[in-house]
């Protein structure tokens, strides 16, 4: 369990450019939770998370990790304690002069661990993050998502109980972000890893966090179970963040991912604007072509007062009939995009 009690961090104290980066924060994070801290840039998220492993000493307050007060430890004990707290970063921070294997082995060196044990651990970790084949490659040859996987493997090398993630997905595209989040979730379940995740995207919190805290100007303005915070947001800031989390694209992805198609089904996306929305197109398909359309997802949005519709349907019927029907839809002004054919 991590307990932050009355934590304040002031930079350049008693000087002209004094900044109160964190103000009197109280936070308890139970073992095995994925805890998301959201807030705009400059809210003090990084400062707060760096307090947890004491990379940043708080001006005031105490940090208890499993009951142990970190601020009271001597340097050597603190270094030992830090091995229980892994950390990953927005820009991955891999050692460019070392291979992936050497990066992962880095925290294991000079610890009295035999070479064989180190190698075994490296292989195990790379397998866990799905990068076994990259062991002898240098970081510059990896994509962002792969680099973050290596960083995760390296952070896990000393078997930490806690993983701090400072904007770990902010430099990645949405798809890769999703993969990294899934990996974190897997680690949370498999290793009972406590994960503290800093982000400015509510999307990330929505995706994997069980609990969340919203930060503004160094303070926590709202915290609680994710479900509860999403259902009854108390502050305007939280509402704003939540609105950003419901982007249609992501729902689309989910639908496509989760649809299991039988061999005679074809998945298509139909987009249409304006008056077409009034016509019973799908009923037409059945009457004219005997094509059964099954709606998986539907949405209408108004862009400058014009209705813009989007449907994802799976069509059941013979190949020939389906292509005829798609041509028919096209002639009616419907844009057709094949998403996934059964073969």
């Amino acid at each position, binding site marked *: 369990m991590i307990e932050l009690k009355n934590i304040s961090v002031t930079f350049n104290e008693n000087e002209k450019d004094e900044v109160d980066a964190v103000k009197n924060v109280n936070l308890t994070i139970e073992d095995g939770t994925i805890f998301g801290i959201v807030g705009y840039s400059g809210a003090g998220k990084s400062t707060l998370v760096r307090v947890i492993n004491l990379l940043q000493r708080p001006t005031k307050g105490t940090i208890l990790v499993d009951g142990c007060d970190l601020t009271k430890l001597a340097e050597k004990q603190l270094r030992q304690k830090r091995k229980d707290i892994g*950390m990953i970063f927005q820009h991955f*921070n891999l050692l460019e002069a070392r291979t992936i294997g050497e990066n992962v082995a880095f925290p294991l060196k000079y610890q009295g661990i035999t070479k064989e044990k180190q190698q075994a651990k490296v292989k195990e970790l790379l397998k866990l993050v799905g990068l076994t084949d990259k062991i002898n490659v240098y970081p*510059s040859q990896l994509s962002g998502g792969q680099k973050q996987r290596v960083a995760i493997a390296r952070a896990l090398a000393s078997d930490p109980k806690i993983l701090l993630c400072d904007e770990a997905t902010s430099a990645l595209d949405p798809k890769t972000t999703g993969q990294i989040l899934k990996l974190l979730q897997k680690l949370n379940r498999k290793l009972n890893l406590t994960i503290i995740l800093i982000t400015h995207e509510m999307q990330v919190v929505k995706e994997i966090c069980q609990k969340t805290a919203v930060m503004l100007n160094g303070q926590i303005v709202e915290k609680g179970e994710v479900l509860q915070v999403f259902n009854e947001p108390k502050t305007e800031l939280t509402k704003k963040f939540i609105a950003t989390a419901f982007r249609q694209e992501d729902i689309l992805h989910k639908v496509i991912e989760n649809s299991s198609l039988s061999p005679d089904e074809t998945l298509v996306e139909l987009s249409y604007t304006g008056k077409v929305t009034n016509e019973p197109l799908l009923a037409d398909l059945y009457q004219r072509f005997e094509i059964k359309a099954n709606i998986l997802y539907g949405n209408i949005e108004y862009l400058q007062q014009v209705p813009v519709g989007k449907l994802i349907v799976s069509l059941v019927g013979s190949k020939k009939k389906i292509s005829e029907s798609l041509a028919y839809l096209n002639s009616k002004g419907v844009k057709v995009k094949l998403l996934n054919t059964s073969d």
Partner: protein
Amino acid sequence: MQALLEKYLPNVVSDPQIFVDATIQTIYMTFWAAIFGGGLGLILGVILVVTRPGGLYENKTLFWILDKFVNLIRSIPFIILLALLAVITQFIVGTTIGAKAALVPLVATVIPFFARQVETALLEVDPGLIEAAQAMGLSRLGIICRVYLREGLVGIVRVSALTMISLIGLTAMAGAVGAGGLGDLAISQGYNRFENDVTFVATLLILILVFLSQFISNLIIKKISHQ
């Protein structure tokens, strides 16, 4: 061929041995000054990086003193430093004349020069790596050896070549205290006795040494760089 050489390089052909000797002297001075000055400069450079504000061993006073000291020595022209350090040279090597004597001012110049270069190279190392290493529980000494020096190695090799090349230039000036070497040869024989062919060949040999330093450092960089 022989006739051609005798026509255009008469003084060179008459005594080629002096070029061999001078080249060896230049290499001797460059090598030892690089070893001592480079070693001490590297240490000073690391100290400058870690004592600066925000560094691993932040120490404002020490940083201020070293920083000013480096600037001070760097401001003194080498030829004056030669004279200035004569007493110390006498004390250390027992004479103020010759290649060995020239080593003292050479090392004294190389230390702050190289330290500054090393400092710049190490400051290029991503602070994020230092932070990551700290988060992993590495000691400060561990971070210096395993992160700064290792990740900054390409930069250090690059500035080493630069320092080496400056050093070859400085050894030429050391001729002023009778240190010998190619620079000395070009001045005392080529220039003073109007033997232009001697100056020409001496220059050529210095250029070869410079290119060789550059070539070797490029080879090393190619080998250790993984960007």
